[in-house]
């Protein structure tokens, strides 16, 4: 075997089969796996026990930074550095600060979310082994794939293959690294 293996890919016809297969694989002890489908299926991430709230935390931090930035800028600008009497209003007139505070909170969160999605997904990524699997282009059309990766501690070439075949996929193929 000259090329190392990335994993074993099973191809399914329906999302229910994929959800069922993912649940079975998790129950069998596999952890390093991923599912590929033409549309988001929440049940699959539940079946994989996939919890990742890094993005949420990043966005929350960005939102709070935007909020503080906006308040500090406005307080510095209109109350401390350049105190101007506008219509006899107090210098710290909070109702006027809210629109900017709101906008900067949204702006910072928006930027953080978009940039994090690109960076955390490792994009741009010109090469990924899963595309070596036959038929894989149909993952964005009408087929549902489950890939158990070779670096899973429980991964064992023939045993894993037998396990996947037991889930009644359309086919199981080896994916080159």
């Amino acid at each position, binding site marked *: 075997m000259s090329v190392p293996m990335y994993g074993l890919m099973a191809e399914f016809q*329906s*999302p*229910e089969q994929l*959800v069922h297969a993912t649940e079975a694989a998790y129950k069998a002890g596999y952890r390093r796996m991923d599912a590929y489908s033409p*549309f*988001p*299926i*929440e*049940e699959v991430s539940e079946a994989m026990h996939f919890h990742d709230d890094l993005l949420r935390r990043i966005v929350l931090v960005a939102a709070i930074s935007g909020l503080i930035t906006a308040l500090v800028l406005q307080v510095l600008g209109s109350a401390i550095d350049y105190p101007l009497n506008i*219509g006899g209003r107090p210098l710290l007139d909070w*109702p*006027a600060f*809210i*629109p900017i505070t709101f906008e900067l909170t949204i702006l910072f969160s928006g930027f953080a979310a978009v940039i994090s999605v690109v960076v955390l997904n490792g994009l741009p990524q010109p090469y990924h082994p899963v595309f070596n699997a036959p038929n894989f282009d149909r993952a964005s059309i009408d087929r549902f794939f489950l890939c158990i990766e070779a670096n899973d501690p429980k991964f064992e070439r023939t045993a894993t293959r037998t396990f996947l075949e037991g889930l009644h996929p359309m086919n199981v193929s080896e994916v080159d690294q």
Partner: protein
Amino acid sequence: MTTNENTGLNNLFNRMLTVGGIACIVGLIALVVLGFLNGFADVWRGYLTAYIFWWGLAMGCLAVLMIHHLSGGRWGFIMRRPLEAGAMVLVVMALAFVPIIVAVMTGNASLYEWLDAKKIAEDPLITYKVTTTGYLLPLNWTIRAVVVFALWIGLAYLLYSTSRAQDTAPDGNFTLANRMRTISGIGIPVYIVTMTMVGVDWYMSIDPHWFSAIYGVLFIVGQGLTTFACIIILLSMLTNHYPFSKVVDKNRLDEYGKLMLAFVVLWAYVNYGQYVIIWSGNIPEFTPWFVRRFAPGWQAITVILVLFHFALPFALLLSRLLKRNLRMLAAVAGLILLMRMLENFWIVAPEYTGIEFYGSSIVGMLVTYLAAFAFLGGLWCMGFAWFVRQQPVLPENDLRNDPRAMKGQVAHA
């Protein structure tokens, strides 16, 4: 639909009828007694206040139903029948509006100061609005009210009867589904324009000197929020019973929670928008509305609304865990409903009292308003329980949105 499958639901709707009937009778007796004790001015005002809430809920059901027909999705499929029944309650609400029409036609000035002959003669602005232009002449006001009720009930009935026709005929070509979509497409603009007009006619005119362009939007957003809060509470009652136990899952709850969160934010947005525009302008024509609501007594209610109508539900509804737990979600929805009633009170009552809080008569007044809420709420529940039982509780032949019709596909709505 066999009867034994639905006994749980039947019991639930029977209970709704009974509770509604009791609330209605107790409320009516209380209103009459309080009227003779404290005078009927507060009875009329309480009735008009409670009317925003319950009529608004029926209007909200109609609006959300139309949005569902236009947007599709499973969230609306599950709640389509309750929404249709809620929209048909407009028939009951139209009857409940008759006393207000009678009061206006007989010139009951405790409801609207533009009915007071002395003010019509002496106040130049009221003279202009009533005599010169004729906009606030009781007859014109009544004709407009009758026309909008005809439009709303017409829309509700068209959607209700088309939906009923879809139950019995396989709708393979989506003829009926598309017809409901067309009705809704026409209905949404009608709803928005009439709601602005009605906001001005029925509630803004309590103080004929004040005006705000966003006033109708406050009603639209409030009705949407009331409706989603009610949907969630209704769902918490329905979900244990077949067939709802089969189609309600955590993803649906999450969707309702998100929609409710969106309306909480929208409510804060339009209210703050109105506030910041009036505050920036600082012109005597516009400020009285907020001057009254920042006066001692009323100010406490304003602060409660900012905290519990917006801040707390907003913070809670951000949590995904909470939105996926029906009991917690229903608790937040209950808080929002209470706040909706308080907000309706806050919209109307200060217009009558000015900057004075009620002071010593506050208890009598609050009890009167509560009795009006009970009376109209009882009517609402009875109407709803009656209409919701006229059809199967889940729509049949809705091929676009029915999860049972989408074999081989997992939720991605």
